[in-house]
Each structure stands twice: as structure tokens, then as C-alpha cells.
């Protein structure tokens, strides 16, 4: 980002006239805005996608009125939610109740700062990108605790307890299975991880080692649980807990929870693609460094993540929900040992072959 802005300043006499710090600040704010808009747009379209796919699966039609094929449905929903009254329960802890949605939102959206959406299309190309993404998404849990606790509602508290236990537990297999790739790649930089997968399909990390192959399935399952997607949607189990931690939220604050959830889905499907499925490389050896190539690369990445989003949606609308103790069993007795084993295999592979 800084080098990009430096280039911009050097090329323009107008920008050289203003202080550098101001250019940086404005540039970063604009970049944030762009990412925010892009991700919000995607999240909105994922909602539409989910509703249309579930409609097809359930012998219904789904939203098809607003815009072509109902593509603008999320705008109509957003306007409707914003027009609603922002109800705050009298017994709620007012301040915490009010800021909780934004913490959840920030936790998910901050992660996009380090996620590359195409060659060079990354706001902050961090050397510890993977670590940053996994760490910052944990912030979401804090917001959830705040929301559930401050609502002062029993069902919300039950939902919050489930959510916190589940998300914190599943972060372990999630992180460890993601690290199988990092160990083999020898880097935590997401752009570098993608660039190592350039070339034919078998250069993708998922096919390069048994550890990463298993790691992908573990990662995807753990991601479903960390996202509270079915069959792990216990925190929001509508038939048990009504709506979990956001039972008491209405209007715009509810919309923010909703947006964060779908942005999280997009985040984890992009991460799956970046780590295991070649990122923006289409699986054939072509160079994607030119302007058009970058745009194509972005489309490739988007198409791949759309596939994983469809899988998530497909799973959600087919399967019943796990029970709370079985979810914990699955985490600690199945996913965690397997991911540790995958990690050990990856480490051994590095030890024996020198990494490549």
C-alpha cells in the first residue's frame, strides 16, 4: 500500500504539493472504504445466493423481484432493516449492547486487510498475514459475548455460552490445519503462499502433500464450525434457542450481525482458496501480472470462492444440526488430533525433503 502511494505521489506534481502524511491517511481511508464496500457487496450477494440456492433445493423460487433475478434483494432488505426501530431492552446494559455489533463487524472486516483478492490486490501485504487473519477473527467472539451478556436475556446467554465454547474450541483445529500449508510453504505471507501455487493444478497446496490434502478437509470443517454454519449452527439454533446471542437485536444492529456473518463466510472461502486451491491462479500456467490479468485473476479467485460458498450453502440446507456435546466431541477428539497429525506429517516432510 505504501509503495503504491509513493508511486502515485512521485508521478503527480499535485500530490507532491500536499504533505505526505495527509496523502497516506487519505489513501488508506479510501482503501478501507473500498474494501468495506466490496466486501459488504459480496456479503449482500452471498445472502441472495444462499436464498436462491436454498429456494431451488426446497422446491421454492426464492427472491427474484428486486433487480435482475433478485440480485438487489439485499439492498431492499437493508433499507427495510434500517427503517426499523432500534429496540434496546430496558434491562440491557446499554453501552455494551450498542457497541457489540460493531466489534463483531470489525473483527471480520479487519481480517480483509491482509487477505489478497488478486495479484497485488491486498491492502496490507503482511509477512505474517495468515497469523493476523486467524488472530483478528477471534475478536468476533468478544463482540458476541458482549452482545449476549448485555442483552440480559436467558436465551441469549445460553446461545452465547454455546458460541464462545464452540468458536474458541474450533479455532485450534482451524489454525493448526491452516499451518500445515504454512509449514510446507515456509511463510505466513498469504501472497507468497498463493504465488507458490502458480502453474498447473497439481501445484495447488491441496494436491501437493497428504498433510495439506487432509488439512483442507479439516480446515473447511473447522471453518464451518467457526462460522456457526449448519450443521454447527448451535449458537443460533432457531428451534432451540430462538436466535441465540442476537435475539434482542433489531433493525440496523441486527443487519450488522447478519452482514458480519456472511462476510465471514466470504472470508473463509477466500482463505480456503488462497491456502489450498491456488488463489487467483487458474490451474494452468499463465501469467497474471498485467492489468487485465489481475482482473482475470480476481475473477478466478471469486469463482473458486463462490464454489466453496455454494458447498457451505448446500451443506447448510441438507443436514440436521449437531448436538452441543457432539460438536465438542468432534472438535477435541476428531479434528484436533487429526490436524495435529497432519501438522506433524507436514513438519516431517519439510525435515526430510527440505520443504519443496
Amino acid at each position, binding site marked *: 500500500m505504501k509503495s503504491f502511494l509513493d508511486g502515485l505521489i512521485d508521478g503527480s506534481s499535485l500530490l507532491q504539493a500536499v504533505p505526505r502524511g495527509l496523502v497516506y491517511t487519505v489513501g488508506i481511508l479510501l482503501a478501507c472504504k473500498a474494501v468495506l464496500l466490496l466486501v459488504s457487496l459480496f456479503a449482500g450477494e452471498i445472502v441472495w445466493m444462499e436464498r436462491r440456492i436454498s429456494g431451488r433445493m426446497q*422446491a*421454492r423460487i426464492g427472491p427474484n423481484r428486486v433487480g435482475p433475478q433478485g440480485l438487489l434483494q439485499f439492498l431492499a432488505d437493508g433499507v427495510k432493516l434500517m427503517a426499523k426501530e432500534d429496540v434496546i431492552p430496558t434491562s440491557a446494559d446499554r453501552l455494551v449492547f450498542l457497541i457489540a455489533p460493531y466489534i463483531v463487524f470489525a473483527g471480520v472486516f479487519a481480517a480483509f486487510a491482509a487477505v489478497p483478492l488478486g495479484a497485488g490486490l491486498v491492502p496490507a501485504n503482511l509477512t505474517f498475514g495468515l497469523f493476523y487473519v486467524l488472530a483478528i477473527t477471534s475478536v468476533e467472539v468478544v463482540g458476541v459475548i458482549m452482545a449476549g451478556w448485555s442483552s440480559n436475556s*436467558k436465551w441469549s446467554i*445460553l446461545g452465547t455460552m454455546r458460541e464462545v465454547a464452540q468458536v474458541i474450541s474450533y479455532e485450534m483445529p482451524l489454525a493448526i490445519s491452516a499451518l500445515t500449508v504454512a509449514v510446507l510453504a515456509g511463510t505466513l505471507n498469504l501472497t507468497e503462499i498463493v504465488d507458490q501455487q502458480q502453474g498447473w493444478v497439481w501445484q495447488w497446496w491441496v494436491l501437493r502433500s497428504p498433510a495439506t490434502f487432509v488439512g483442507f478437509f479439516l480446515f473447511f470443517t473447522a471453518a464451518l464450525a467457526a462460522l456457526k454454519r*449448519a*450443521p454447527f449452527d448451535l449458537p443460533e439454533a*432457531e428451534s*432451540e434457542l*430462538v436466535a441465540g446471542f442476537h435475539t434482542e437485536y433489531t433493525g440496523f444492529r441486527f443487519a450488522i450481525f447478519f452482514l458480519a456473518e456472511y462476510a465471514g463466510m466470504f472470508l473463509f472461502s477466500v482463505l480456503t482458496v488462497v491456502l489450498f486451491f491456488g488463489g487467483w491462479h487458474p490451474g494452468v500456467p499463465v501469467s497474471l501480472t498485467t492489468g487485465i490479468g489481475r482482473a482475470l485473476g480476481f475473477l478466478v479467485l471469486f469463482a473458486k470462492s463462490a464454489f466453496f460458498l455454494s458447498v457451505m450453502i448446500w451443506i447448510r440446507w441438507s443436514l440436521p444440526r449437531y*448436538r452441543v456435546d457432539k460438536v465438542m466431541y468432534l472438535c477435541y477428539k476428531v479434528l484436533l488430533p487429526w490436524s495435529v497429525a497432519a501438522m506433524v506429517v507436514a513438519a516431517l516432510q519439510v525435515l526430510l525433503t527440505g520443504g519443496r
Partner: protein
Amino acid sequence: MSHEPVPSVPHVPGVVAPKAPPVVDASDLARALEERSMGQALRTEELVVNMGPQHPSTHGVLRVVIKTDGEVVTALQPHIGNLHRCVEKIGESLPYYQWLPYVDRMDYLAAINNEHGACIAIERLAGIVVPERAEYIRVILAEVQRVASHIFAMGVYGLDIGAITPFLHTFRERERGLDLLDHVAGGRLLYHVVRIGGVKRDLSPEWIDECHAFLDAVEERLPEYNTLLLDNHIFQERTCNIGVIPRELAVGWGVTGPALRASGVDWDTRRDAPYGIYDRFQFEVPVAHSGVAGVVGDCFHRHWVRFKETEQAIRIARQALRDLPPGEIQAKLPKTLKPPKGEAYVRVENPRGELAYYMVADGTDKAWRIRCRGPSFSNIGVMTDVARGALVADLVALMGSLDIVLGEVDR
């Protein structure tokens, strides 16, 4: 507890006097216990939660007060009566003809079956003979209703477990069944088509073709529902060995219907105490036996029995359609029905269990006393004994598997 003074011990040289036990104050004791428990375990509180009457999986307006220790239910108490509409009392203040529509509204998912029983009870009081064709039509309608009710229950159970898609799939077929009943009766849920001494409308040949098509469609779809529910690994994990109602407990609480047969009791009113013309049909009564999955009496088997019963209901409906005789559909009745003094007790097999009517006639055009025995009411009670120690999620699974209709619990 009063503290008695410790008797003083006379001092004897060489003998150590036993120490007087320290006088313990109750609050001291509590504090001491609390201090001891610190570091060993966190002091926790039980949470009393109101489940319902506005809760998505209480299937109506049931209110269950549950005491939970975390996720574990330690005690629960169902509170009923939110949907009480005095159906029995109204029956004592209205002429027999006019009471029938109220019966529909008891178990609103199986209105035909309700009407069937009520009509038989009144006919028995008044000594009315129903024409053959009307008897067959009643059975056809009742079994179509049973199919619709059972597949609906199966779908809704999926919803309780967390699978939304099977619910909409079963809804699609159920809606076809309701359309069929709509064509005969003119209403989607509340029909008032089974009348005293017969039925209101005749079945047309087109209707019969359509009914065959519906039964075929459901039969074809049943395996499809099973791939989403009964055969599903997560579904089995959620329902097998959960909410087990042992045989004795089921009989003791007066559980009837699929829930009773799921506990291994071989009883079906249609076969063992036939009413109407049910003794003319060939059908099996599915009874849970171990060997499918889980144990007899668990949630899985209640769902399984419902699935098997749907198949049998289709079988009965087909036989009735095949044997449907021509003729009258309504017996000649007086303008005001005044059954002679007497009483009648009629029980019929509702999709949810044994529905019974007790009626006392005093020679006027109104019943002196009407009493209904709702199957859901008895089935709900067993919950208090079974759910203790279960998880909240299991409680939902148990409640859904009993398939209660609150309209009939409260009446």
C-alpha cells in the same frame, strides 16, 4: 436446630476430658462450606428458563418452564391452557349438529379424524345407521388426512432437529393432500365434511383419480424423506437413545398412538377395537423393535413408526378407494336430533394417538355432558419424567417426536 448445652465432664486426673464440640452457627457453616468449595469448583446457579409459549419448537402455545444447569435440564414443568377454548362445554350448550365444527379445531392437523369420532359417538347415541358409501368415504378422507398429518409431523421433526429442507419437501406433498380434502370439503384445514349420519359431499371419479395420484406421489417421496432424515447420520445421532420412554412408563402415562407403538406396545385402535368399517381392511400395525437403530422407545423410533404408518395409511386408503360402493352418502335424519337418554364412549385412532369421546344424552337436542380424551394431552405428560437430565437440544427433540398439537391438549 437448637443447640443443647454440652454437659460438663467432671475432671478426673489422668483422663483427658473430651473436647466439647464447637458450637456451629448455620451461617458460619455456610461460609465454611463456601470457602471449602472455592478452588474446587466454581459456584454455579441453575437457570430457570421459560420455553414458550412463544417458542418456535413448542409446536403452538405450550409453555414449559425448565430449570437448566448449563445446557442440562434438571427439571421441567409443562404449563398448558393457553389455547383452551371450552370445546367440551360448548358441546353441552349447542345442538349436536352445531357442535361438530368445533371438533375440527381441536386437533387442527387431523380435523377429519376428530369429526369421524364425534360423529360415531353421536350416531351411537341416536342409533343412526350410516350408509355404506359414506363409511368408505369417511375412511378414505381419514386416511388421506392421516398421511398429510404424518408427513407433516415428519417434516416438522426435521425442523426441530435443525434440517429445514425436508420440512418444505413434506409440505409440498401435504399441500396436495390438503387440496384433495379442500375439493371435497371446501376448506383447507377445517372441513366439517363428516356429518352425523354420513358425509357432506360425494367423491367424484376425477377426485378418486387425483387421490390415487396423491397416494402414489407420497409413496414415491417417502424414501426421499428418509435419505434426508431417518438414514442421515446426524439425525440418528440426535435421536437414537434420546428421550427413551420405556414400555411401562408409556403405558403408565397413558401414552397412545405412534409414541406408544414406538415404545414397543402393539396396540392400534383401528385394529384392536375397530370403529366404523376398519375391520374390513388389511393393514399392519408397525411396532418398534430393536434392530433398526437406537433402542425401542427413543425419538428415532417414534419417527420411524410414523414413517411406517404413513405407508399403511396409504394401503388402507387404496383398499377403500378400490372397494368404494355406490349408493347414498347421508342417512335420513330428523330436523332436530334428540337422542334418547344414554351414554356413549367412542375411541378412534387419531394420527397422534387415541382420541375418545364420552357423551351423555338426556333426551334433549343437546348433550348433557361431553368429555374428550385428547392423545396429545396424555403424551405431553410423559415429558416430565423423560426429559430430566437431558440437554436442551434433546428436550426439543423429545417434544418434537411426541408430535403434540396444542389445540387438542387444551381443547
